[in-house]
């Protein structure tokens, strides 16, 4: 098994003819993702590499029985595209676009709850279930199938951690980047809950960063509800307060959201916290008794 995504997932790509959309569609297809349709308004009826293109997500989903979409639409139009996806009948929406206005995301999020749609992102690398399917922009070749679940608020830092796992010969069940914006569709807790239930996942790596209290809430969930071992890393222990560290969500505001608080909350929940990404495989091996 894996979480949220597997080889049966039928994918529609929104923004399929754009620069990023076409590049990553090809990379996903090459990885083995079942891309069944694409959407670019005004290009309905055309094809890209044999993939049929539609004007609307609704049409694409209905005609090609897609049950997931991935959004590569540029920031100005991304919120509209994501709302269309959420209302299309697809049950998984991976929202890759960055720079989406927060108040728009708040409205989309509300709709995902009403329609029971799983949205990942925005501003995220997406999700990969190695050996099965890739719905995102991560480099597929660093991943391999195995028993480690990875969840992260970051993009390239996730690749770094996966690369460390690869060097230690540890494969992954699913790797998910939930995004670095203030409002995101899928939280640490949603993901931890899914990993806990997934029979392929043996242990979980949680990669957090400064800002907000998601890691603290995750720590509480782990303490109360997780039986599988979790190890973690928190980025930004040297970050100065009051400065937005790239991600809109990565800011220590009013003395809250420091790496220290998060590391303490995790340690108190019995979660080992690595000082560097390269320490993560060792912590996992210890946690798994290997």
């Amino acid at each position, binding site marked *: 098994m894996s979480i949220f995504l597997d080889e049966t997932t039928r994918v529609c790509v929104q923004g399929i003819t754009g620069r990023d959309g076409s590049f990553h569609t090809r990379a996903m297809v090459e990885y083995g993702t079942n891309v069944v349709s694409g959407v670019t308004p005004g290009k309905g009826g055309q094809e890209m590499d044999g993939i049929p293109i539609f004007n609307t997500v609704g049409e694409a989903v209905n005609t090609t029985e897609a049950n997931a979409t991935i959004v590569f639409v540029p920031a*100005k139009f991304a919120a509209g595209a994501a709302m269309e996806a959420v209302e299309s009948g697809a049950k998984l929406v991976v929202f890759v676009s960055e720079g989406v206005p927060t108040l728009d995301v708040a409205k989309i999020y509300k709709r995902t709850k009403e329609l029971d749609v799983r949205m990942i992102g925005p501003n995220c690398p997406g999700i990969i279930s190695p050996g099965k399917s890739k719905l995102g922009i991560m480099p597929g070749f660093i991943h391999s199938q195995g028993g480690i679940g990875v969840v992260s608020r970051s993009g390239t830092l996730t690749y770094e951690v996966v690369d460390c796992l690869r060097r230690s010969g540890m494969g992954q069940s699913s790797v998910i980047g939930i995004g670095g914006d203030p409002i995101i569709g899928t939280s640490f807790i949603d993901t931890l809950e899914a990993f806990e239930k997934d029979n392929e996942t043996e242990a979980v790596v949680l990669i957090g960063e400064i800002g907000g209290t998601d890691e603290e809430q995750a720590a509480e969930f782990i303490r109360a509800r997780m039986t599988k071992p979790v190890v973690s890393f928190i980025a930004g222990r040297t970050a100065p307060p009051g400065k937005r560290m790239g991600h809109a969500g990565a800011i220590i505001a009013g*003395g809250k959201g420091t790496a220290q608080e998060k590391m303490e909350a995790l340690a108190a929940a019995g979660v080992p916290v690595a000082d560097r990404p390269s320490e993560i495989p060792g912590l996992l091996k210890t946690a798994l008794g290997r």
Partner: protein
Amino acid sequence: MKIHEYQAREILSGYGVPIPHFEVVDDSSDARRVAEGIGSMVVVKAQVHVGGRGKAGGVKLAQTPGEAEAHASAILGMDIKGLKVEKVMVADAVDIDREYYVGIVVDRASKRPVYMVSVAGGVDIEEVAATTPERIHKHPVDPEDGLSLADAQELAEKLDTRPHVARDIAVVVEKLYEAFIGSDASLAEINPLVVTPDEQVWAVDAKINIDDNALFRHPDIEAMRDPSSETDELRRAREMGLSYIKLEGDVGCIVNGAGLAMTTMDVIKYYGGEPANFLDIGGSSSPEKMQTAIDIITGDPNVKSILLNIFGGITRCDDVARGLVAALRERPVGLPLVVRLTGTNAENAMRILAEHELESAETMDEAVEKAVELARRQA
């Protein structure tokens, strides 16, 4: 994006929030003129993007126009937390009977705007939240339905029980929410919202932060950006799509992705070094971008070594390598440079870089250790 208090006042005023008369001046004689026009006590306030202006001596009351001029003269040019005061606001100082707090933030936990009101106005709301959280009343707002009249009235009644005063406050509560939504704010607050002895309601101080992601649809607010609030490096970085924050150390770093950039800083510290900066080049990597990144970092006299840490995903390593080579051809850096490129198209990248004598490393640990050591040798 932060805007100045006077700009926040202009926005709120546009939505019909009652604001005491004010003008912004950059010359002390103009401060006198404004105070003469108001004809009663005024407050002179420094317009800089930092909190704690009052404690720093940047906010003064003046009984007479002469006093206003003297205060303006003292405050203009003052340095508050590293920022030079270029403008002061001169505003009618209304009489204060009661001071309240009203504000809205985007709440990450409930994933919607949350209204906060408190009878403890006029002081730092974060301090109230930390010491007496029970004095803050919170009300989550549905992002689609917005704030109803009844909600506004209920919030107002938490602050003041006098019916006509509560009614006036409810109007402010509603208008503030309209302004928050209308300007795509991440925070909008009035602190204090003042009730005068004759029971008039005035917004005396206003703060609005704008969601950077929404600036594309608010050119009027983008135009409020104060160039003097940004150093040259910050402006260059922002215009090139780089996210840069200067720090105090001597190991400069150029990284793709915010999480990895923070981690690189942390690992530098782990190996006994101090990062000179946070710099995220984002998802693409033109030669111009690389050139700008290198220029900004070498422009910091503290920097003793530079570390380039790239994990290619959407960013292709060979693009970064080409950018780097072009940048170095244009202008040699004159500082030790350690390059770590891995991920998408890393092999091509290493081929491109092979003919240039650069220190390279396979892992982040190795790269950081080298960069820290090189900085130490230069010191």
